[in-house]
């Protein structure tokens, strides 16, 4: 159990460091792509996590990244929105008792297939990215940029997260 906590903590730290040192330095050739795959650490938090702990952990993660990269509360806001939506999605959409019976503590493609898995992960990623870009652009005249940034970045984030999943997966 303690080992599990340490592993999760390490996942958070490693993903935030990767985000700060590598992902944010990458040049994708356009301002529209700015992936944030560190939210993978939040998405795989177990369903049983205390919901207040979930909020605080995600808020702290976002805040840490904000302090590192001068984005002033944008990641923190987006992350707490992500935590709130994840809690709602977990409790309203998923049949937690089925998942628990089968021994999963976060969503796996084995539950209802890959399409459902992408639907869940993609929507949560999009919510996070949309919130981030609204706060980052912070003007209505950039509405098209906000929407396209969110969609393209979420797509790239999703790909990177699948890569991370491939290396760290349990199921």
């Amino acid at each position: 159990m303690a080992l599990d906590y340490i592993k999760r903590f390490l996942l958070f730290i490693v993903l935030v460091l990767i985000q700060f040192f590598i992902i944010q330095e990458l040049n994708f050739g356009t301002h529209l792509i700015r992936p944030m795959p560190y939210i993978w650490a939040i998405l795989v938090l177990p369903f049983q996590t205390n919901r207040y702990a979930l909020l605080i952990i995600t808020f702290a993660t976002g805040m840490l990244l904000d302090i590192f990269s001068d984005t002033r509360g944008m990641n923190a806001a987006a992350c707490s929105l992500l935590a709130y939506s994840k809690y709602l999605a977990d409790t309203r959409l998923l049949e937690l008792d089925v998942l628990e019976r089968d021994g999963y503590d976060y969503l796996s493609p084995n539950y209802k297939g890959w399409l459902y898995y992408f639907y869940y992960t993609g929507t949560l990623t999009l919510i996070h990215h949309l919130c981030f870009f609204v706060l980052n652009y912070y003007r209505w005249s950039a509405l098209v940029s906000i929407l396209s940034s969110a969609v393209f970045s979420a797509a790239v984030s999703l790909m990177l997260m699948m890569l991370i999943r491939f290396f760290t997966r349990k199921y």
Partner: protein
Amino acid sequence: MLYLFRILRNNLFTITFLVLFFISYLQVLQFNDYQQTYYFNTSKSFLNSWDRLKLNVTSYFSLTHKNESLARENTELRKMLAANYLFKDGKLRLSSDSSPYKRYHYILARVIKSSVYDQNNFITIDKGKSSGVQKGMAVIAPNGIAGVVYDVSEHFAVLISVLNTQFIASPMIPEINYRAGSVQWDGKSANIVKLKGISRFEKLKPGMQVYTSNYSTLFPEGIQIGKIKDFKPSGTDNFLDVNVELSNDFRKMDYVYVVHDFYKAEIDSLKKTEVQDGP
């Protein structure tokens, strides 16, 4: 009252979320207050050592580029040397000591962090109060303008980059003798800025060089901004929508010069009286 408490207790989770969200949102808003400097002072000293470590590793990868740009600047400076000029008649004399009339002094600094992918980008440099850097000073890179000092600590300073929606500079285009309007970033590409307020009747051509204007006291006159890439009528008014390609590559910045203007206080005080006495 009891009912109210029950609502609060039943929705405690949502309320916690709203509080956290609101805290973050307030921090985003804080930047809109231009003079607000609370964020950068909090933990810069600790983080800057991290950034410096990172710089020590990454700076090796772009040594060729840096050497090139420094060499290019050296040639430009060499061209200005007095030894290049012939003084045939004895009337003209070159005075090497012009210190009583010196207006600008340059402080060399190294960029330890520069973001380009945000909407409001900042640059951190490794010179601060102890080296004479002050708030509001202009900063130029070897190839063009870089930004304005926004916040200073003892050994570091944070600049508002040209790639920041709050940044404004005044341009001049010597070829058509134009000095008006403003240079602003629209947040779309890391090497394009917009030239605003330029009339439809100006005879612009792509490729024209844009420099900083002598009408503004922020930057010294004639520092390169970039060259005009393309332009089209903006449709709604009598202005042109001009794209300027920046001469400075903000992704590869390393050494910059902080400009100390000895006469800035004097000019600023004059401006103030002008405003007070105005209509």
